């Protein structure tokens, strides 16, 4: 299977342009006087509107890489460029979704979703809040506080809060990791629906191979300690994906063996 192909088969070539470029990024943490390489020689290009999954075992540095791209961490060496500009800090055009832990517990659902809309006139603000409340299916819960909601609902609040400021990039760090498996499946479907409607560039960190193959245009497989990009696997299946199709299974098994796992336990 050729995985070096950068251009995806189901996207017209004319719309392709680089949204994100990662040039030779290295990240070294210092703990108790010892230096610990976390990321090594990361090179990646992401196209506008692309859905990328960063896949790897826990501790492989995928979340660190995502935090660096979002501007929360500074790489030890190398550059991260978005729209041709070096990333120097977090930016409202690129919103990070932290599982459901990032929802502000002191604000209602409305208050959370409208958090980034402080500068808009009141009418426009409430119109946008209503729009995204509806999009994530939380009508009737506008005045509820997060502690009154389930984990899946809190996750929707956070996704809606991110979408409300109309970012061009969204970073999701194992956003559905804490949810039960049924809710997780539903949330994947909703994320895809939203992505298809809004065409954001999405970088999605996961350790779940099925999740990656179900969602991504390309899966970036990372190896652990130090984190390196092992392989980039384009998923050339149109949405909605049939998760029992031979192509799906072939791609999934390819990644499984790439990571070094046989699929019979």
């Amino acid at each position, binding site marked *: 299977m050729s995985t070096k192909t950068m251009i995806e088969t189901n996207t017209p070539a004319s719309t392709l342009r680089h949204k994100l470029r990662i040039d030779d990024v290295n990240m070294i943490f210092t703990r108790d006087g010892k230096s610990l390489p976390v990321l090594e020689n990361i090179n990646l290009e992401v196209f506008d509107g692309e859905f990328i999954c960063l896949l790897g075992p826990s501790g492989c540095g995928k979340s660190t890489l995502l935090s660096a791209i979002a501007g929360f961490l500074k790489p030890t060496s190398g550059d991260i460029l978005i729209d041709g500009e070096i990333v120097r800090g977090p930016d*409202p055009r690129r919103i*990070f979704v932290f599982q459901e832990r*990032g929802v502000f517990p*002191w604000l209602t659902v409305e208050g959370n979703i409208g958090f*980034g809309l402080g500068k808009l006139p009141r009418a426009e603000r409430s119109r946008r809040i209503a729009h995204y409340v509806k999009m994530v299916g939380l009508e009737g819960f506008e005045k509820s506080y997060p502690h009154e909601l389930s984990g899946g609902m809190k996750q929707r609040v956070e996704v809606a809060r991110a979408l409300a400021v109309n970012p061009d990039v969204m970073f999701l760090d194992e956003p559905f990791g804490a949810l039960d498996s049924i809710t997780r499946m539903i949330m994947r479907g909703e994320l895809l629906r939203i992505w298809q409607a809004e065409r954001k560039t999405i970088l999605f960190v996961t350790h779940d191979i099925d999740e990656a193959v179900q969602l991504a245009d390309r899966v970036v497989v990372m190896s652990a300690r130090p984190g390196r990009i092992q392989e980039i696997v384009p998923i050339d299946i149109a949405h909605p994906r049939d998760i029992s199709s031979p192509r799906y299974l072939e791609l999934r098994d390819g990644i499984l063996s790439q990571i070094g796992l046989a699929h019979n336990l």
Partner: protein
Amino acid sequence: MKLPVWLRPVLFILVLLGAWQLAVYLHPHQLLPGPIKTAHGITDLVHHGLIIKYTVASLFRVTWGFFLAVIVAVPLGLIIGWYRRAELAFNPILQILRPISPLAWIPIAILWFGVGDLAAVFLIFVGCFLPLLLTVINAVQSVPAVYINAGRNFGLGPVTLMRRVLYPAIAPRLMTGLRITLGLAWLVVVAAEMIAVNSGLGFLIIDARNAGNRYDLVLAGMVIIGVVGLLLDNGIRSLERAKALRWGYAEKS
């Protein structure tokens, strides 16, 4: 026999009062005045219009001392808690000042402000300021990093971040800190009034003893201090039930 829940503490208090009265009856010259004499003491004070006057005087000092401590300690605590370098600079001095009882400041309070309201207000300020400051610093440092990162991600600068993320995130702990500190203020005011002023409930107690060993009035004063303290605590507790703060208590459970 099953008693209604509200009746149990009432009955228990009556039993204690009975035991107190009995003990006083058995040893009339060695113990305190009994509950009946104390009640007479309270009515005496009411007749002279002293209860309202002294309670208002004490509350006035507590209000000002507490209020000043809040408006200085909360913003300062937010800043010190937020900037690691400020914490490194302030921490040693705070740790040295912390074990000093506010009462140790009495001579300095009188030296600076003379005998009067200002000295008492100053002592309450000193008593409230440090515990409150340390509560705020601690609360800021335990705010989860995700809230701060989320706030920064939406483009908030340091000032808006403090107002829209840090402050609401610490509000439940701040509320608890305010409650404890107000209780402390009420403790300090009594001590301060025994030395630094000529009115208030603390003055009532020391004056009743000094001017004729009126221990019935001493006990009457103590009862009033207890009741007013309870009412203050209940008042501030009702603020804790505010809707925007409830999450802090809901999450712990």
